[in-house]
């Protein structure tokens, strides 16, 4: 199994841990990630806020590089995933957009490069059964709230990822690891990260507070995420939540790839677990030898 890997900008700043744990997991499972040489920013939210052609063209530039590699694209970041898929959607559904994008880049693109989130690769291409067999350790007894956020599942016409209202992919991975996947209502709420760096952070804090609070009420011992923006927001904002509301959650926010890495027996330091703000030590200690 071989994929063109699109790391995304956060892999070099706030989400080095997601990047490291994904590469470690892929390596352990024999999945070949070939980094796209010359990858550039997908445009993210500021791109589509500003101009439709700009947003689609910035993403398409990367898909063209992957096309030349002849491989499907694998992505970790939910926002990059959404933007790359949106570029395919624009090219395939709007011929005028395809023309404008080609003009901007200087090359036509047919919209046919497959874009997959790493979770899709694990569940669909590698397979949940094979994955379960690869696990040497287990999350037995651990209550995990799986949090999907917004851009993985929405809009479904574009991402085609799971069910937009009640997705199960992360939950299925948690179950495959032997953990208890909690049924809770906020799994597809938005954490508001796109406003996080602006001065509207009070709103972002209140959104993060309600998500972590709901996970806590459901009995979660940690939250599993698959998006670098959700992770940094829910993890780092617990400091602000404490300041603004006095609520002290101390809720570890782990990437699903970090949990998978632990269950594959990959050493803690290779999974970037020391980069988390809220210490994941209770979770690391809870991982047991598989029965």
């Amino acid at each position, binding site marked *: 199994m071989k994929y063109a890997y699109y790391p995304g900008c956060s892999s070099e700043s706030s989400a080095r841990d997601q990047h490291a744990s994904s590469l470690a997991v892929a390596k352990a499972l024999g999945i070949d990630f070939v980094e796209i040489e010359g990858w550039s920013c997908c445009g993210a939210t*500021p791109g589509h806020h500003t101009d439709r052609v700009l947003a689609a063209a910035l993403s398409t530039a990367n898909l063209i590089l992957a096309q030349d590699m002849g491989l499907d694209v694998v992505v970790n970041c939910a926002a990059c995933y959404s933007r790359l898929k949106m570029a395919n959607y624009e090219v395939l559904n709007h011929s005028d957009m395809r023309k404008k994008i080609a003009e901007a880049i200087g090359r036509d693109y047919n919209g046919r490069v497959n874009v997959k989130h790493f979770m899709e690769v694990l569940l669909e291409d590698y397979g949940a059964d094979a994955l379960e067999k690869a696990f040497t350790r287990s999350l037995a007894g651990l209550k995990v709230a799986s949090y999907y956020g917004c851009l993985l599942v*929405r809009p479904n016409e574009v991402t085609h990822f799971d069910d937009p209202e009640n997705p199960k992919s992360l939950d299925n991975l948690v179950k495959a690891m032997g953990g208890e996947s909690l049924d809770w209502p906020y799994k597809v709420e938005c954490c508001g990260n796109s406003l996080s760096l602006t001065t509207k952070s009070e709103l972002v804090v209140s959104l993060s507070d309600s998500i972590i609070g709901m996970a806590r009420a459901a009995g979660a011992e940690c939250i599993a995420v698959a998006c670098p923006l959700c992770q940094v927001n829910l993890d780092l904002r617990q400091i602000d939540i404490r300041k603004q509301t006095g609520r002290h959650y101390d809720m570890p926010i782990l990437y699903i790839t970090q949990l998978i890495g632990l269950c594959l027996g990959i050493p803690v330091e290779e999974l970037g677990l*020391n980069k988390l703000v809220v210490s994941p030590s209770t979770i690391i200690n809870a991982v047991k030898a598989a029965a």
Partner: protein
Amino acid sequence: MTIRIKKGQTGKGLLDTVEKMSGVDLGVCYQCKKCSCGCTVSNHAQSPPSEIIRRLQLGAGDELLNNDLIWTCVSCETCFARCPMGIDMVSIMDALRKLAIERKAAIPEGNVPLFNKAFLKTVNIFGRTYDLGLMAMYKIGTSSYRQDTEKLPIILKKKKIAILPSWSTNRKTVKRIFEKVRQNKESLK
């Protein structure tokens, strides 16, 4: 919500422009308000999304561009996902944001346009985002130096931000895209 309609108002206001920019037909909205019920930020803004649609249908003009939902919206796509008529509200909001900038509408607290500009500036230069650079630009522009500074030690300790920018080797294409989009905008003026 109360929407006042001026007697004798002619023309269709923003509706045609917004529909053309987004490729979305707003005529099919029957105000079920599912978008507003699910909206992440409607409690934190002047109007929920269904009201924006209704105002457009009733002929709202440039005054609508001052509505703070335009810059409070987090593009979480819940409205689009839940609309029974498949209205792509996200593209409507993108169109309103573009018009708000072009027509110099009021920019509410948070100054998201400045953030977007700073973000894209780093992408144009490096081909990738450079968080430290964009935060510096944004903080200078908004004089919000103290915000989030108390978290800086932990951000640095955990290496959650890169000190040096990362350069894409495909910068030429990225620059070309920005330049072409700018030229298109100029030619429309």
